[in-house]
Structure formats: structure tokens, C-alpha cells
């Protein structure tokens, strides 16, 4: 609470600011919000002619009252796009509304009649009364009658001009106030009011159906705000594409018809015990009461909101922002979708202008800008726990556990449709958004308003779906879902941070038929896991001596609960789950508890999320966590080796640093095999030569010495010096393979920092040929990559992986995704790591992932949204990503795009605070733009699959790649890969041919090098038995003979100047080069001549 005050104070502007802001606001508002001014062509002109002073004023405003000037500019654009053009709509609708009104006024009165007669009468005119459950008995004493509405008014966001133009068109609300004469004093009990109301709306439907049909509308019933107690009439334009808005006809009553006293939240108004779906008699019926009360407050709220919008200039814009924010997070008015929609937001704002602060002062001031209103409201939602009720006016008794903002004057808890879970979700979202708004590093505009945040698989760690249960008419659904929520929350306890339920309210239905019950069936549950507790095997209950609590524990858990004595001597009720089972502990709990409390078997609910863990286990040697023995043993071996290397005596230089530089040593290798790279740096010495070749030779001499030393000290069996990059004398030429006694193979290279200075000098040396300078540039790139950035990245990831336990598995699964889509030859492991890290260190607009599923899917999602041609990918790796660093990175990115606009050398730009240069992992066509585009489109396809099949998506589909788009596919000999089934049987023989796999890699590299201009090859990891290729489309046309044509050609037919790519000859060469590796080459479609 105290933090809340401080923040609030920061927001409320000083008097002079407030004065200038209201001034500035009114001037800009006058310019843009008055409904008439919406012609957009006018604005740029005006901006151009504006003087400097005015610009300064605009700037001052933008920087003072908004998050940042760019944020403000974007927000202005957003608001301009979303502000409906009311004048135009009013003129279009006026005639229609008028006709409807007249028709309604002319519906004849009907005398009182019994329920049966009423039904009969309306059925004759083709209307079925939309009774709420339970429908009235045939023998009820009260009667149904109809009389002309006391009042017909346009209400709601259309009338208040607080609506937002969104994709789904906002309907116009027409409220009919039913005459009080139709009701008796006691009609608020036992659904009597609602039954009369249903008859009334049906009568209106019958009375207007002809007229509106002529106007081009379909007449349907629909529950108001998902509430089946309160059906409304929905007039939908018959042609979907017509510009007509739909019109909703709502019912209202006079505010004084039923006393507020009778509908207070704790009153009990359903007294018939007979109906199965209502609460026990005597129980408070707060939803029922509020439902009734909200019919009585239609005009009251309309008036109060209208006056609020008149008092504050930015009120309507703040409403648009709020509606947008809510919609992106899946919050709507029906209780099934959160129970917090546009109306609730607007009503909340109007109340916060009056009070709501810690000591009763207003939270909002009329002088606030729309952004300030938005932020203060978000801050209020995040900071004020409303399960401690907030009263405007007198205090009354309210139920506990649900949020309450009780508007005493109108007698309504405006949050009555919110459930404990939807409120928890709302606060969670508000807190996340507040964090984003307070962040100075990024402007986050997209993440607050543009991004759709409510995609279940991106938002939650585990999803449960009940296709058949827990839904139905409103009161019953509310009750059942509350029961489900209570059981799930209690059963999962601190393994989860949030249990959130969503369902569908009933769709609208034609007036002559019954509502389609199936449209509302089922409920989905999203879980946010608490990664620390989710894998706990033993749950401790209450101690045996606390009789009452342990009895409750036992009755909840049944025979699963057992008494156990623990090491500290305590005897506790406890639950034991299995960590050996195929199923996750969460699933085991659900399976048990749903059966026990709801008799729901595993066939009747769906569960999503575990499959991602299983997919990783399948392709990642059964390893899930970074702390698994496989990774730890490599780490231990490294520590041991480091000790030996520090103690070497035969080597004349002292060791400065031995740095790990391999995915194996940063927990991110998909499968822990192969050699682990390490980098050794000696203390600097002036005895190193200044000549590149001599440096390489010296390195070889040192490596030989180190090998001897390690062999003699017993750290390793026979060490071997290996050679690499033999075509160049400026790139590192040699390494040392150290088979550590533990069985781990290390590959050591010597880092000599003088090389960098020498290379930089060569780069600047104008006397050298361009080719030599290019070579120096490449060598410098390679130097920085292997000796500077790889160790840094390794260091950073080693700490990140321990900080975020799910980072390592997520990276590994993402690597598998890239593998299975054959990106290995083009996209480096380090790049994938960086792309994934951002999901964890910059998780906005969500929280940091607590499951492999969300981590992986959000990474794909961020890839799918990355416009890599126009934007750098900026990762916070070391926690030092200040705005200056970001600015620096952006400058570098722009420079690169200026140097290489065609993106021939660099397609992706991925930078971090540790590596602001941004090209370490991607320069020299790693990947090329063709591959980058393919990566984007695959990520988009995956996200699309997620959107279209949220519940029945097969995870393996994401990992299946199609070979059809490639021009040719080289199938490798299956013998090289051994038999898969035997692999599974003998774990220690898992990769018997890792040497063989190096061969395939060398082969791919050879072919790619020989045909760099004509072919692009795609290959996966060591288990991938195909190499796919595409022809460079530019080589496929005949062209004039040229010496520099860097691919095999044949003379074109009938020409003695033109040549054509010689594909069969090239494939023949590849086949001979890969003799013994290749089984066959499959050529697709047009690739053949």
C-alpha cells in the first residue's frame, strides 16, 4: 500500500505542470478529438507548418506526461485508429433507431395471463420465451403482462463515446425501461423478476420482428454479458458485410422499483429448495442479486459515466486504451471471460475520480492525460487488493474471497462477475503491465497494446480442458466452476502460481428456437507453474495431532493420504508421487483428484504441456534439467582439468585463464557428446613473434608441450594436436585434443590477444591487396568469435542456466526444432541460444517461462514476429542492457544495413549487452537471407498452427519437416547411422559412429564450398539421414559466358555466347565426392531438365 502511494505521488503532477498539461491537452484535444475533425490529410500539413516553439511544447508534453515520446506518438496513432467516427455513425443509424423506437412504442399492451397462456400466445407469433433456468412452473401464481416501456434510450459506449473501433464491430445499446406497474413488491425473489423479464423481451421480439426484418436485421436472443438470467435482443445485420452496426435491445427497470436493501450481496433471494441448480436456501445469492440490481442501474450508470466523461477531456481516450488492453488479455464482460470488460473499466474510472486512494482521496484527477489515467488505473489494479472490499459510500456485508468495489449509491458491486481466478489473473496482468510501463529500457508499447497476450499455450505452462463438464446456465456454471477451481487450487497448492478458468457463454440464438446448449459446453483451465515446487515428490500435510486439519486433509485426498514419520521426528499426513512415471506429477495429481471429486476419468479431460518435455527427452538423450549428471560430469572434468593445467610446470608461460567455450560446458548441448571446446590464455609475453605464420607455429609448439605435460601428470591419456583452417595462415591452425581420464574429450585452443592488434593493423593497412584485407577481416571475425565471444557467452549462459532452470531445456528443444528443419549447416548453435535467451531475460508481456512449452513456443512466437530486415534482435545477456547500449546497437545495425543493403553478407543482426557488434554469430551468410526467410516462415507456420488448433495440436507436427520444397534430396546410407532400435537398447553405444558423423559434416561443408554460388544445402544434426538442396534460382536462366561464372555450365542450345547451369554434371560430381556416404539422390520436379 505504501509503495502505491509513492508511485501515485510521482504521477500526480505539480500544480504548474497540471496547469500546462490541461492547457496542452485541451489544445491538442480540440484539434483531434472533436468528432468532426477526423480527416487525416489535414494533420501532416499542420505539422509541417508548425513552428519550432510549438514543436518544443509538444516535445515537452510528450516527454513529461508519457513514458517516452515515441510511446506517445504511437499511442496517438493507435487512438486515432480506434476512435470511432460517431457523427457519421449517428447520422447513419438515427433513422433505423427511430423506426425501431416507434415500433416498440406501438406494441399493444397485453393483459395479465398465466405462464402457459403467455407461452402459447407468443409461440403463435413464432417466438419462444427465453426462460432462464429454472423455468417457471406451470402453476405459479404470478402472471405475465406487457405494457409500453416507460423509457427508450440509447445507452452504453456508443452514447458515451467511450467505445473503441475494433475488428469486431461494437453494437449500439438501446435500453427499454420496463414500466414498474408490471411488477409486484416481492418479485425480486425466486426468479420471478427474471421470468417476467423474459416474457417482456419475448413480447418485444414478437412485436418488432416484422419491422426489423424489413430493415435488414435478423432478430436473436443472447445472454447479456454471458448471463443467462438476462436475455437481450440482438439485431444483427443480415448481410455480414453491410456497414450496419448491430443493435442490442436491453431491458432496464426503475432504480427504485426494488429497494437496494433487498439486493445487497449477502441477501438470500432464492428460497425454493426444490430446484437442483440453485444454492441452498438461506445462502447468500450475490450473483443473482447483482444481476437484478444491474438492470436497475442502467440509467444511473449512464448518467454518471456521462458526467465523468464531460469532466475529464481524456476520459474517452483512456477508455479506449483500457478496452484495448483488456481485449488483448482476453478480458470481457461475461463472467466466463473474466467478468471485466469495457463497462467495468469505464465504471471503475468514474469511481476512481471520486475516491479510491489509501485515505479516501481520488486516484485520478481530471487533469490527467489519457496515459496517466491508464497507468494510474493499472497501478491501482495491481496494487490494491480488492478482496479486501473497497466501498464507495456506505459499507455493507460482502462475501469473502472475491473482489469487491461496492458502489453504495447504486447498490452494486461493479466486480460482481469476477471470480477469484479471473481476479487473480487480472492482477497478474496488471502487475506485469505496470512493470513494462515502468521499464526505462524499452518502450514496450507493442507489448502493452498491440500484442495478443491471451493465447493459452503462450500464456500458461499447462492447459487442461474439460470438453463436457462445468458449464451450462450461468448460476450453475458459476457454482460448478468455483468447485472445480477450489479442488484444483487445493490439490496443486504451491506447485502453481495461478489457476485460471475460461469458458464460453451461450451463443446468440434465433427467437423461434431454443438456445444451443452445446455452444457453451466445456471449460479450459490454464496453469502457471511454480518451477521450484512443481517436481516435488512428497507433499507434507498437517501433523497427525491436529485432528481437525488432518481429517479435512484426509477427506480431501482419500486413500492417497498416508501418515509418515519424517527424519525430524514429526508425523505428518503426506502424499507421495512418482518421479519415475512417464507422466508428470501434475498429471498424476489431476488424474487422481479429478476422479475422486468429480468422477472425471482421463478420457474426459485433455492435458497439454507435458509433451514438450517428452519431445526433448526423446531427442535429447533423456536429459531434461541442466543439473542432470551428464552435464555435471562434464563440468567436474573441466574443473579437474583446469587444476592440472594451472599446475603445468614444463610450459614456460604462466596460465592467465582457462575458459570454457562449448555448449557442453554451458548446459545447452542437445546431446552431451563430442568434444568440449576450451580456450587457454597465457600471461602476455613479449617473446611471441609478430608474424602470423610464426604465431601459428608457436601455438603448435605450445600445444605439443601442454599435451606432454598433461600426459605425464596423468590428467589425460594420449593427447593429439589437430589441424584446422589449413587454407589460411591468419586464422587459428591448431588445437589440442585432450581425452580426460573421466572420458570427456576436451579441445583446447590458445588465445593470443596480440593477434587481434595485428589483424586490426592489417585491416587498416592500405598497402595490402583487397583480398588480403578481406582475409584479415575474416580472421578478425573468427578470432573474436572463438576467443572472445564464445567464452563470454559460455560464462553468461552458465549463470543464466542456474538462474532460470528452464532455460537449458528450452534452448535444447529449440535446437531440436532447428535441427529437424535442417538448419544446422546455416544457423549456429550460439545464435539459437541467443534467440531463446531473450524469452527468459526479456519475457514481456508475460512472466518468465516456467515450462518448456511456454519457453519454446514463445521463442517461436518472437521469431515469427521478428522483422529481421528492419530490426535488430537485442538480447539482455549480462543484465547491463541500458538505453545507451541499445542505442549503440541500433546505430550499428543501421550502419550494417547501409553498408550491405542487399544483405549479402549479413541477414540477421543479433546483439547483446555483452556483444553490441551483433554480427558474431551471423556474418558471412550464417544464415543467408533465403534461410532467414525460411526460418521466419516456419516460425509463422508454427504459431499459426498453435492459433488454429489450440487444443488438439500434435507437438510432433512442429518438428516434422517436409522435404517437398527442396530441389533435390541426398539420402545418406542408413548403415552410417547404425540401427535405431539397437541405439535404444545399449545406451553406452548411443553414438558409435560420431567419427562418421564428422565425415558427413565435412562432406556437407565440401559440397557447400565447391558450389557456394549455385546450391544451398540443408542438413540436420548427427542423426539426420538426409541432405536437402535447392538451386540458386538466379543460376537457372541461360546467361552469357563469363570467366567468373562460378558453377559448372553447359553451352546453351543454338547459341555460341550463352551457357546454362549443368545440373546433372554437378549432381554427378556430388555423387562421386560422396561415394560411400550416399545411398541415392532424389530429384524433385522442375530441377530435372
Amino acid at each position, binding site marked *: 500500500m505504501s509503495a502505491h502511494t509513492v508511485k501515485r505521488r510521482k504521477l500526480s503532477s505539480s500544480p504548474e505542470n497540471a496547469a500546462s498539461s490541461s492547457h496542452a491537452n485541451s489544445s491538442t484535444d480540440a484539434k483531434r478529438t472533436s468528432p468532426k475533425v477526423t480527416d487525416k490529410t489535414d494533420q501532416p500539413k499542420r505539422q509541417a507548418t508548425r513552428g519550432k516553439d510549438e514543436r518544443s511544447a509538444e516535445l515537452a508534453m510528450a516527454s513529461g506526461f508519457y513514458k517516452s515520446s515515441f510511446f506517445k506518438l504511437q499511442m496517438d496513432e493507435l487512438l486515432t485508429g*480506434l476512435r470511432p467516427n460517431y457523427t457519421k455513425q449517428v447520422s447513419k443509424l438515427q433513422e433505423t433507431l427511430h423506426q425501431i423506437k416507434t415500433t416498440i412504442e406501438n406494441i399493444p399492451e397485453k393483459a395479465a395471463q398465466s405462464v402457459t397462456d403467455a407461452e402459447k400466445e407468443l409461440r403463435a407469433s413464432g417466438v419462444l420465451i427465453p426462460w432462464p433456468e429454472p423455468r417457471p412452473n406451470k402453476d405459479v401464481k404470478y402472471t405475465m403482462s406487457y405494457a409500453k416501456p416507460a423509457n427508450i434510450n440509447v445507452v452504453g459506449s456508443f452514447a458515451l463515446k467511450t467505445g473503441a473501433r475494433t475488428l469486431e464491430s461494437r453494437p449500439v445499446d438501446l435500453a427499454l425501461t420496463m414500466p414498474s406497474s408490471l411488477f409486484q413488491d416481492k418479485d425480486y425473489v425466486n426468479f420471478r423478476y427474471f421470468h417476467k423479464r423474459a416474457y417482456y423481451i419475448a413480447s418485444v421480439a414478437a412485436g418488432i420482428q416484422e419491422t426489423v426484418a424489413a430493415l435488414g436485421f435478423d432478430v436473436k436472443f443472447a445472454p447479456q454479458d454471458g448471463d443467462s438470467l438476462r436475455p437481450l435482443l440482438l439485431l444483427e445485420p443480415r448481410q455480414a458485410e453491410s456497414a450496419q452496426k448491430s443493435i442490442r435491445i436491453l431491458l432496464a427497470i426503475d432504480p427504485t422499483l426494488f429497494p437496494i436493501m433487498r439486493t445487497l450481496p449477502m441477501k438470500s433471494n432464492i428460497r425454493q429448495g426444490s430446484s437442483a441448480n440453485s444454492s441452498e436456501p438461506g445462502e447468500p445469492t450475490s450473483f443473482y442479486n447483482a444481476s437484478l440490481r444491474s438492470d436497475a442501474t442502467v440509467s444511473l450508470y449512464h448518467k454518471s459515466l456521462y458526467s465523468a466523461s464531460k469532466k475529464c477531456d481524456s476520459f474517452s481516450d483512456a477508455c479506449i486504451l483500457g478496452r484495448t488492453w483488456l481485449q488483448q488479455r482476453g478480458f470481457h464482460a461475461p463472467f466466463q471471460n473474466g467478468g471485466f470488460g469495457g463497462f467495468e473499466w469505464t465504471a471503475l474510472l468514474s469511481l476512481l475520480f471520486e475516491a479510491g486512494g489509501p485515505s479516501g482521496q481520488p486516484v485520478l484527477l481530471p487533469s490527467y492525460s489519457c496515459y496517466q489515467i491508464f497507468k494510474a488505473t493499472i497501478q491501482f489494479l495491481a496494487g490494491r487488493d480488492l478482496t479486501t472490499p473497497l466501498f464507495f459510500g456506505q459499507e455493507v456485508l460482502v462475501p469473502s474471497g472475491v473482489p469487491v468495489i461496492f458502489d453504495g449509491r447504486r447498490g452494486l458491486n461493479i466486480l460482481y462477475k469476477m471470480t477469484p481466478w479471473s481476479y487473480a489473473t487480472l492482477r497478474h496482468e496488471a502487475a506485469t503491465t505496470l512493470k513494462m510501463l515502468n521499464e526505462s529500457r524499452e518502450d514496450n508499447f507493442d507489448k502493452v497494446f498491440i500484442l495478443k497476450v491471451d493465447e493459452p499455450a503462450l500464456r500458461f505452462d499447462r492447459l487442461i480442458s474439460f470438453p463436457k463438464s462445468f458449464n451450462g446456465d450461468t448460476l450453475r456454471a458459476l457454482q460448478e466452476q468455483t468447485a472445480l477451481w477450489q479442488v484444483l487450487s487445493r490439490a496443486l497448492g504451491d506447485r502453481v502460481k495461478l489457476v485460471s478458468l475460461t469458458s464460453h457463454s451461450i451463443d446468440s440464438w434465433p427467437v423461434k428456437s431454443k438456445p444451443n446448449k452445446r455452444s457453451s459446453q466445456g471449460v479450459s483451465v490454464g496453469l502457471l507453474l511454480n518451477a521450484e515446487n512443481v517436481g516435488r515428490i512428497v507433499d507434507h500435510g498437517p501433523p497427525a495431532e491436529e485432528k481437525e486439519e488432518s481429517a479435512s486433509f484426509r477427506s480431501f485426498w482419500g486413500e492417497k493420504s498416508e501418515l509418515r514419520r519424517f527424519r525430524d521426528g514429526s508425523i505428518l499426513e503426506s502424499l507421495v508421487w512418482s518421479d519415475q512415471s512417464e507422466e508428470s506429477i501434475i498429471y498424476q495429481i489431476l488424474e487422481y483428484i479429478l476422479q475422486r471429486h468429480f468422477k472425471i476419468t482421463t478420457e474426459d479431460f485433455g492435458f497439454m504441456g507435458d509433451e514438450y518435455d517428452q519431445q526433448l527427452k526423446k531427442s535429447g538423450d533423456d536429459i531434461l534439467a541442466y543439473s542432470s549428471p551428464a552435464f555435471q560430469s562434464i563440468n567436474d572434468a573441466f574443473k579437474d582439468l583446469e587444476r592440472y593445467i594451472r599446475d603445468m610446470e614444463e610450459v614456460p608461460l604462466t596460465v592467465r585463464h582457462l575458459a570454457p567455450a562449448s555448449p557442453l560446458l554451458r548446459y545447452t548441448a542437445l546431446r552431451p557428446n563430442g568434444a568440449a571446446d576450451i580456450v587457454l590464455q597465457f600471461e602476455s609475453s613479449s617473446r611471441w613473434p609478430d608474424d602470423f605464420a610464426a604465431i601459428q607455429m608457436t601455438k603448435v609448439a605450445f600445444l605439443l608441450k601442454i599435451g606432454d605435460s598433461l600426459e605425464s601428470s596423468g590428467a589425460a591419456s594420449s593427447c593429439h594436436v589437430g589441424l584446422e583452417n589449413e587454407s589460411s595462415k591468419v586464422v587459428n591452425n591448431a588445437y589440442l585434443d585432450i581425452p580426460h581420464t573421466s572420458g570427456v574429450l576436451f579441445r583446447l585452443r590458445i588465445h593470443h590477444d596480440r593477434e587481434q592488434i595485428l589483424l586490426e593493423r592489417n585491416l587498416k593497412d592500405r598497402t595490402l591487396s583487397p583480398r588480403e584485407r578481406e582475409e584479415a577481416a575474416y580472421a578478425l571475425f573468427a578470432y573474436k568469435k572463438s576467443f572472445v565471444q564464445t567464452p563470454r557467452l559460455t560464462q553468461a549462459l552458465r549463470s543464466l542456466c542456474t538462474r532460470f532452470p528452464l532455460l537449458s531445456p528450452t534452448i535444447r528443444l529449440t535446437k531440436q526444432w532447428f535441427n529437424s528443419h535442417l538448419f544446422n549447416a546455416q544457423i549456429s548453435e550460439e545464435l539459437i541460444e541467443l534467440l531463446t535467451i531473450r524469452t527468459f531475460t526479456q519475457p514481456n508481456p508475460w512472466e518468465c517461462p516456467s515450462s518448456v512449452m511456454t519457453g519454446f513456443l514463445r521463442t517461436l512466437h518472437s521469431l515469427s514476429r521478428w522483422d529481421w530486415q528492419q530490426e535488430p534482435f537485442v538480447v539482455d545477456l549480462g543484465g547491463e542492457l541500458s538505453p545507451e547500449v541499445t542505442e549503440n546497437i541500433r546505430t550499428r545495425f543501421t550502419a550494417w544495413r547501409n553498408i550491405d543493403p542487399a544483405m549479402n553478407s549479413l541477414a540477421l543482426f543479433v546483439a547483446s549487452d555483452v556483444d553490441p557488434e551483433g554480427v558474431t554469430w551471423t556474418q558471412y551468410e550464417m544464415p543467408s537471407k533465403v534461410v532467414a526467410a525460411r526460418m521466419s516462415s516456419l516460425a509463422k507456420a508454427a504459431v499459426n498452427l498453435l492459433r488454429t488448433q489450440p487444443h488438439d495440436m500434435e507437438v510432433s507436427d512442429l518438428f516434422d519437416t517436409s522435404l517437398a520444397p527442396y530441389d533435390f534430396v541426398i539420402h545418406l546410407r542408413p548403415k552410417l547411422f547404425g540401427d535405431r532400435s539397437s541405439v535404444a537398447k545399449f545406451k553406452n553405444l548411443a553414438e558409435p559412429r560420431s567419427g562418421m558423423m564428422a565425415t558427413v559434416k565435412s562432406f556437407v561443408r565440401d559440397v557447400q564450398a565447391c558450389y557456394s554460388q*549455385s546450391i544451398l544445402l540443408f542438413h540436420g544434426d548427427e542423426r539426420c539421414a538426409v541432405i536437402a538442396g535447392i538451386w540458386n534460382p538466379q543460376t537457372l536462366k541461360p546467361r552469357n559466358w563469363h570467366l567468373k561464372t*562460378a558453377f559448372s555450365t553447359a553451352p546453351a542450345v*543454338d547459341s555460341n555466347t550463352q551457357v546454362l547451369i549443368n545440373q546433372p554434371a554437378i549432381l554427378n560430381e556430388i555423387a562421386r565426392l560422396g561415394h560411400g556416404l550416399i545411398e541415392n539422390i532424389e530429384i524433385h520436379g522442375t530441377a530435372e531438365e
Partner: protein
Amino acid sequence: MKDASVEVAGYTTLPVQLPATPTFPKPATHYLYIRPHEPRIPDPDSTRSLFLVNVPIDTTEAHIRHLFGTQLSAGRVERVQFEDVPTKKRTAAADTDTNSNKKKRKRVTADDYQTYLDDINLPSTWNRKLQKSGAHAIVIFADKPSMETSLKAATEAAKRGTTLVWGEDLPADRIPALGLQRYVAHERLQYPDRGALLRSVNEFMTTFAAVAEARKREESKRLAEPDEDGFITVSHGPKLNSVAREDEMKELVERQKKKAEGLEDFYRFQSREKRKERQNALLRRFDEDKKKLHELKARRGKIRPE
């Protein structure tokens, strides 16, 4: 049609049949483009050389010898110069200033050592190198007539459509095999034995020391000798440590900057200018933001929620 395919852009096109393999049974014809070698700066060898373009990726010197010597039974090939191999062989051309980055002195001894040094390499890890697709090569024949007969034979073969199979009947022991065997060999050759490595390193280092020694000697000798005008150039010893000097300069600049620190607000005009600058920077940023927004809109269309 045959006539048409004999020549392209002044080159004789010689079709060569590539041997089919079980993995890719489709026969394939490869085309070599041949013409006399006419470099911009002619050298003594160019008159007896042919210029070959688009050699197959597996071409070796043996292949070329076999093609001209046996398969076309024409001229005798002396040697082949492939595209990717740098023309370091300074047999006769020691005087031309090729693009070697080593500093040259007109003293024979040091350069001799240097040439020798350049030839000391670590052992190669491939027993057979590959050519890039579409690469060219210069074939130097024993004499001019063998070159001429070879070109003629090639043209004849092309006109008559004689089937020449690439590397046919080339003794298998003359060239290392391609395919898996080549990669297996590579994996072995990647790790040369200790003795061989040590020998290369020692030889290199000894020669390297000799080069340095000789250079130093020549340098001091040159310094002592008066030039044609009778002057002796005075210099500050060898400029070997240019890097060290760069470092020194950097440090100096750095120190200067540090000294000036904290004095930026000394005069009032300084703080006034700074304020102005800050204001301008803000305005500039604002304008940039506007531009950015404009670009964003151009790219993504209207800003609206998804």
C-alpha cells in the same frame, strides 16, 4: 548443332563424359572451355599454355596430363596451375612485386630465407584437394607445339563428338580415391604425428630466426652506406614496434582526456551551450521518433491491436 556447340565466346568447348555411379546412375556430360592462355601481362610460359575454364571439382594434375597426353594423345603437360593456389612460385619472377606482405629488401639472402620460410607449412590434412565448381586452370605444356596440337586435338574431338570419359583408365594408385575413403584419410591426417609436427615447427622457427637475423644485418648495413647523393639516412632503429607505439599514443590521448575531466562547466558559456545542446538533442530525438513512426506505419500499416 554440333558445330554450334564447339565454340562459346571464343573458347573451344570440349564435352567430357563424367563416369556414372550407382548412387547417381544418370550419365552426365561436363563441358571444358579451352583457349590459348593470353594473360594481360604475358610471362615466358604463357605462349605454351592453355587456359581451361570449368574444370570438374575433382580435377588433379594427373587428370589433365591424362586428358591431353593419353586420351587426346597430343601434347605433354609440364605442370598445371589451379585457380585457388596462390601464385607464389617465384621461379623466374622474383623481381616482380607480387602481393606478398613481407617487407622486401633488395638483399638476396633475407629474401631467399623468406622464400624458403613460406614453403614450410604444417602438414596438409587432405590427400586430395577439390576445385571450386566453374574454376579455371592454366595448363603449361612442354613447348609451344605441344600446346598447339593439344588445342587442335581438343577441337577435333569436340567436332567429331568423340566420347572422352573423365579420368578413364587413369591408374588408381596415381590419385587418392574420392568419397568415404578421402574423408577417412582426412580424419587421420587431421592429427599428424608428433614427430612430423615438431619437425615443421622447428624448421620454421630456425628459418624464421635466420630471416630476422639476416634482415637486421642488412638493415644496419644499409644504414651505414651513403646513398647516391652521399647522405646517410638517420633513423631510430628498426620500426618493428609500431604496435607498441600505437598503444603509447592511445594512452597519451587517454591521459589528456582525463585531465580535462571535471572542467566542462568552468565557464558559464560552457554550461549554457551544453543546455542548448541537450535541448536540441531532445528535439532531434523527437523528430527521429516521428520519422521512425512514419517508417513503422509504412511497413506495417496502421497501428492497431492484433
